[in-house]
């Protein structure tokens, strides 16, 4: 009888534990693989194609790149149709050129990939041979753990550096070594719907005061003036970070975010104050703290909200035939702030999206060739559809490029400085602190002074634990 009771007890206990376990420790490891959109069927198809191509090629040719069968895995973040098709078309192209190479591409939705899948895999160096990654603070832990291949020798060997635009390697470089190939650049701009500005007789803002005035006019007319999905901290960050470029200047911000200078400065307090001023003037949608970025920007694309401060990727939505604002959008820089240290030619942005190579890959040369190829190819294609500015010296017919993106490109022609979004610069706990403090500003529970002090404290804590 006792034994039975004991067994019963163990089983009950185990059941409770497993229920909890699913929610906690188990979640971590399973979450990553769960949402991956595997493209096995497609790849099987490609494998057959490759086979055919191999047969077609003359013996002389195939000797050149024959050798053993090489399998590469490629991890990326474009399960969607538009970008996914670009990836697949390059994979096919590469496999055609290299009949002995088979590439398996695995697409995962971006947030899932960034937060879960890559982190779990990189802990054991099990990510793809070539994998999409973010430079700056994000990849630092991976580089430190030695799971990313340094590319300097390979870059030297293939003369890659000459093909890249200046400054695009900055955030893929750690301790003087390069680890990432830049995929694209972005720049922040204020996208204005000219039709709405005309309808309400508002001037497109060039200074912060004009911006505030525009906000008040739109609000008084019952129009939500600016897009913001404050449920996602980074979306608030886009605006505040850009304001900080104006108030504190690009050079200082870059040093401060790297931990060389303090983040608790008057200029940064000021940037938070300006954000609060916008918020108090009713710039953002009602209930913005409960809205996600996608939900919020939808109304901009429908032509209901006149202003959206966002990255250059907003262009693709502006020019998309699915939306109702084609040809109505004017991109202008973040308005100038009187007394600020940064001029109108400093931008938020930079090259942070990278292709990296797994340090454990069996074929670094082929992986590198593929990584360079796809990076260049995507840089060009993404430029055409208005997703981002190229990081490579590309040769694209201007008429093929998204018109709104061309406007952004015009803006940055004379750019004298870039600052990345803070959340890509910062590391670990400082990112979470950044989001929290930003949301506090919008909710009115954090003062601008507390914001700056809090950012500095979080930065010190992260840098401090690293130094130990």
């Amino acid at each position: 009888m006792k034994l039975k009771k004991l067994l019963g007890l163990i089983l009950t206990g185990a059941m409770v534990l497993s229920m909890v376990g699913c929610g906690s420790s188990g979640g971590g490891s399973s979450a990553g693989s769960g949402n991956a959109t595997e493209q096995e069927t497609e790849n099987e198809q490609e494998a057959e194609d490759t086979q055919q191509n191999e047969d077609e090629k003359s013996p002389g040719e195939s000797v050149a790149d024959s050798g053993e069968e090489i399998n590469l895995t490629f991890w990326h973040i474009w399960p969607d149709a538009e970008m996914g098709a670009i990836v697949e078309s390059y994979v096919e192209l590469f496999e055609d050129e290299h009949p002995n190479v088979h590439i398996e591409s695995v697409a995962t939705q971006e947030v899932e990939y960034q937060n879960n899948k890559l982190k779990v895999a990189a802990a054991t160096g099990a990510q793809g041979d070539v994998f999409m990654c973010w430079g700056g603070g994000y990849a630092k832990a991976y580089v430190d753990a030695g799971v990313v291949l340094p590319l300097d020798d390979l870059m030297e060997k293939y003369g890659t550096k000459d093909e890249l635009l200046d400054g695009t390697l900055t955030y893929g470089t750690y301790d003087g070594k390069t680890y990432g190939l830049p995929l694209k650049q972005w720049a922040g701009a204020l996208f204005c719907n000219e039709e709405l500005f005309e309808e309400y007789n508002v001037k497109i803002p060039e200074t912060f005061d004009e911006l505030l005035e525009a906000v008040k006019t739109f609000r008084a007319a019952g129009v939500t003036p600016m897009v913001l999905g404050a449920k996602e901290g980074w979306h608030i960050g886009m605006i505040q970070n850009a304001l900080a470029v104006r108030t504190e200047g690009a050079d200082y911000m870059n040093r401060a975010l790297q931990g060389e200078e303090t983040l608790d400065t008057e200029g940064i307090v000021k940037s938070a104050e300006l954000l609060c001023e916008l918020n108090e003037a009713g710039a953002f949608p009602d209930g913005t703290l409960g809205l996600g970025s996608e939900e919020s920007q939808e109304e901009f694309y429908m032509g209901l909200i006149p202003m959206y401060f966002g990255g250059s990727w907003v262009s693709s939505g502006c020019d998309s035939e699915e939306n109702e604002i084609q040809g109505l959008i004017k991109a202008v820089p973040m308005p100038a702030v009187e007394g600020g240290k940064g001029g109108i030619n400093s931008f938020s942005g930079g090259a942070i999206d990278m292709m990296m190579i797994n340090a454990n890959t069996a074929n670094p040369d082929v992986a590198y060739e593929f990584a360079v190829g796809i990076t260049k190819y995507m840089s060009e294609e993404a430029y055409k559809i208005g997703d981002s500015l190229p990081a490579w010296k590309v040769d694209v017919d201007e008429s093929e490029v998204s018109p709104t993106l061309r406007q952004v490109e015009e803006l940055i022609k004379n750019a004298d400085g870039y600052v990345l979004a803070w959340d890509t610069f910062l590391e670990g706990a400082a990112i979470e602190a950044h989001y929290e403090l930003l949301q506090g500003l919008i909710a009115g529970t954090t003062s601008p002074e507390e914001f700056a002090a809090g950012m500095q404290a979080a930065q010190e804590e992260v840098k401090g634990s690293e130094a130990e």
Partner: protein
Amino acid sequence: MERALKDKKAICFFVLPALIWFCLIALLPVFQSAGYSLLDWDGIGDAKLIGVSNYVKMFGDPLFFKAVWNSILLAAASVFIQLPISMVLALVLAGGVRGENFYRNAFFVPVIISGTIIAHLWMKIYHPSYGLLNIGLEALGLASLKREWLGSEGTALVACFVPMVWQYIGYHMLLFYSAAKSISPEIIEAAQVDGATRFQTAWRVIIPMIVPMIKACVIFAIIGSLKSFDLIYILTNGGPVHASEVPSLLMYKKIFISNEYGYASAIAIFIILECLLFTFIVQKIFNHIQKD
């Protein structure tokens, strides 16, 4: 059969494979987590043993207490709002109404829909400008009651609780319903012959007879609430300003945004112990009730 059940060796032998499997996939990770909770580790690089510092940090973190308090509120809402509603529905259905099967299935539908989808449905309901709730209030002339349901600190938590409580009403209803149906009809007829009303039959005959099922449901409801994650993750992501934070969400953020694997493991261990503690307490209370 009876002889087989008396043979303790046989029981051990047949339970063993499942038990070993269970230990490997359920118990072992828990102990691993306990080990991780003693580390200062970002989940990727080198780990450093720091003893119970993570627990000290956890118990000194006001945010953690807020999250735990929120989850306890949710557990209370589940037990005192969700279960009574389920019980009433179950008793009404078990008492026999027209279209019993239809209603039973209809109430069960939210249970089979994925939590993610439910969260998105409710997000649309709560949307401040075109949400069903605000539009409905306006149509009824109650525009003053319109709120930014998920976006303001005062309402976010309650706004999250409503779909969470609603979702599993059907689940508990089905359990109560099947328990009530399994009571032999003679007993209920006997009560009716004695002149008991429907309410008296339910209150004095059916409910006392399904106490074991009530106990199971209370435990399910409490544990489910303490480890709730999906709906809140999508609806508010714990916001605004942590108004709707719960422990499992906090743990998730610590692992995947802050890279504090050790600290997150400490939270995981806390959730496990908390669930065990509540299970134990509920068992004790019900043992007491059943004895009376």
